């Protein structure tokens, strides 16, 4: 097993573990915001909401809100994704990053961050699609 000199060890920054959670965290925030906005609008603000849940009140502003949330969430996820990509780039394609070195640890975390933000972006778009196809509170 070859080991690089200790001088090449990037320091341990536990924050990078949290980097993994930012993408999915943004998905969760986006998801919750969409759900709560729609639920509260349909229960409270939608014209005729007082008459019960089975109203055909238009979602109107909710769809714009979802669009705004989605833009914000995708921008954030894109940022994390880019961050992961940038950290990965120097070693991309060089192998499975499984040596006991700080460099490989960094690349692994960068790669996992990249994948997780990719998944989060897809899931965010899925959520937003519901507001594309559904136009009222029924």
């Amino acid at each position, binding site marked *: *097993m070859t080991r690089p000199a200790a001088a090449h060890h990037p320091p341990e*920054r536990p924050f990078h573990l949290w980097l993994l959670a930012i993408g999915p965290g943004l998905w969760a925030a986006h998801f919750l915001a969409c759900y709560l906005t729609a639920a509260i609008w349909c*229960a409270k603000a939608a014209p005729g909401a007082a008459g019960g849940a089975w109203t055909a009140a238009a979602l109107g502003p909710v769809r714009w809100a979802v669009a705004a949330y989605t833009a914000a969430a995708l921008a954030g996820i894109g940022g994390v994704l880019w961050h992961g990509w940038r950290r990965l780039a120097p070693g991309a394609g060089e192998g499975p990053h499984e040596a*006991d070195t700080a460099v490989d*640890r960094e690349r692994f*975390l960068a790669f996992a961050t990249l994948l*997780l933000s990719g998944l989060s972006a897809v899931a965010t778009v899925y959520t937003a699609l519901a*507001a594309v196809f559904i136009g009222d*509170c029924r």
Partner: protein
Amino acid sequence: MSERGPADNGPRPAPEHPGPLASEEVRRGQEERLRKAWAAPEGWRYWSAVNNTEVGVWYIAASMVFLVFAGVLALLMRAQLAVPGNDLLSAEQYNQLLTMHGSVMMFLFAVPIFEAFSILVLPQMLGARDLPFPRLSAYGFWCFVIGGAFVCGSLFFGAAPRGGWFMYPPLTTRYQPGVGADIWLLGLSFIEVAAIAAAVELIVGVLKCRPPGMRIHLIPLYAWYVLVVAGMILFAFPPLIAGDILFELERTLDWPFFDPARGGDPLLWQHLFWLFGHPEVYIIFLPAVALVAMIVPTFARRPIVGYGWIVLAAVGTGFLSFGLWVHHMYTTGLPGISLGFFSAASEAVAIPTGVQIFCFLATLLAGRVTKSVPMLFVLGGLATFVLGGLTGVMVALAPFDFQAHDSFFVVAHLHYVLIGGAVLPIVGGFYYFFPLKGGKLLSERLGRISFWLMLAGVHLTFFPMHWSGLLGMPRRVYTYEAGLGWDALNLASSAGAAVLGAGFLVFLVDLLRPNKRPAARNPWQAGTLEWLLEMPPESWGVRSVPEIDSRYPLWDQPELARQVDQGRWFLPDAEEGLRETLVTTPVDARPVQCLRVPGPSFLPFWAAVTTGGVFVFATFHWWLATAASGVLAFGVILAWLWTGTARPQEKEVKDVGLGVRLPTILGGAQSIGWWATMITMLGDFTAFVSLVFGYFFYWTVHEDFPPEGVDGPGVTWPALAAGLLVASWAATVAARSANRGGRRVLVHAALLAGALLAAGGGAALVAAPLVTGLDPMAHVYPAAVWVLVLWTALHVAVGVVMQLYCVARGLAGRLTPKLETDLVNTTLYWHFTALTVAITVATIAGFPLAA
């Protein structure tokens, strides 16, 4: 988070070469001392053991007993449904059986078996001698056994719960008198405590108790899954606990949380239950995948393909699983757009699920697969799971679900997922990991027989259920009419159940039969650390804790086993006769502490018995006994804390071998106690947030909330409470700084002042709804205010106890600038309490103003 500053100045990497070989005599002495330190107690004291090798095995055995129990219930149900118009069971009995089957399988088998496996195997995978809080594991185990026996026992008195495993009100609040529902609520709440205890233990174990060199990208995949699943438990169980509290308050005190006549709403229970219940499915499924991720590389004879992708899948599934809960509620009349959001997330979760399966397939294709029983179960499980996953994609689509809802189609789907995704891999895991305890192998032949019986049984039982469901057969019916086209399908399902049962019987015979074949060391030629274990295993686990360079150290470091056995790595000795293990940093696994882990004690057992008493007696409304048990529990837990935690050590720094000197006590945010408190409080806070969610949920379903004519708790008393409690928090923080400065008198003054302020603040908080005459039985609004107030007041009361405890520790000389754990954890607790107070006051006093 925990490490301060750049780690270049902090903990250093461990030496990467083993030490010299000590003489035979020295080594024998070391082994003698290690054996003595880690030996399990003998005679009746055996049950005071807390080591993972004992507690883990008891835990597994108990889970298996519950599995068999729930399996027998299932066989009885299938016997009843075999023919139309059968009268083997009455409707009442059938309802009890089906409720117990679901509840026991979910709460007493599927989740505990994960905790049990992990407690037993995780330390060995991490080259640790034990998990950081062995007594907590033991406490969790005893809670689990007591709660489980209580819930299961009710069946023999005909008093079992009968409202289905998700206990929907108003069925269970208005139409089912008797203690059944209370047994479910209180018995299982008690077990939820055990689950959260295990989650704390496992998260700290994975992050802080790895061998030197095992950086975060080298940990076994099982450990990644443990981390994700334990994190999920932490955020999934608290909403259920919050729901249980509301439910029990309604049943016992008639607070109308789910009673529409007084402003309540049964849908809130569904939200809280499924906010737990859906992640729960993944809490069951992911650990089984974790077993697969360990078994597949071993038999493919190569490292896993796509380690990073599997981590993506585990973490991604963990998150997405919290966005699925409403797909159990598609038919409750929520707006279509809400269903759309949840349908989207339910489809998205198929992506990471698929990714891990493709990684396993790729590993198998790239390797040279050897035939074995564990692999059979893994492959059979994966194939079965994929079928269940496909119907899952179907029922995730709202329009399809409207048709299939509450039919046997759903029963088929969930059993395919849970048996394929969990039960079969778990049995495979038994065949694979069995040598780790006792050094014996299970039978290859019986394993094959059992596998084929189980596989045939599963498909014969559950495949026809898709049809009977689509033909309109509803779930949870105790019988049905002939001639609806369901007869042959049901008979087939019942026959299949018998075959499945026979498969299990063979497996159980194999488990229990004597004269098993002794296993050679590392019998499967696996690459991960747990197979370092000598056969038969020694009580110490690893002879010395090695430095690790790869994901499969036994494959990549061929000399490792010999060096470890020769005691040439860390902690090769127990000079002081104490149980010790290494604590390392969470990312790079640099050693930072030599942790002394506690040994055998009956305190966890008594703590579980007395806390269990509180729940059991409360079920029958024996309030005096409940109170007495509560007082005893309080005493036992204090005794446990006083004698067992934050103990002074006879030496501050210890040489752990290879010239590495580590402290025996760590303060502040580096100590494992801080981590455990932090994790516990996150779970606790999640339960609180669920209660706040309830408050605002009622606001959304009501036109005016607070209702017309009802005055809220006002502003004066809540504001006073907030002021006093924030002052108490500040006093606690000040005490911590004073302690670091070594000013003892100031520490005590600040803590006592903090306790007084907190007592006053807590009283003012309770006074708020009291003096304004809010009647919790009249309407859901006052009830919602009261529940937030009581939750917060209870936390303040615990906070006062902690402050006074720190004063007592200081007086006893057990709270010093170096030994500050108690005060640091109290302060951390108060951070969360202050936040809870702020949110409660803003909600009960501020929101009515805004609304």
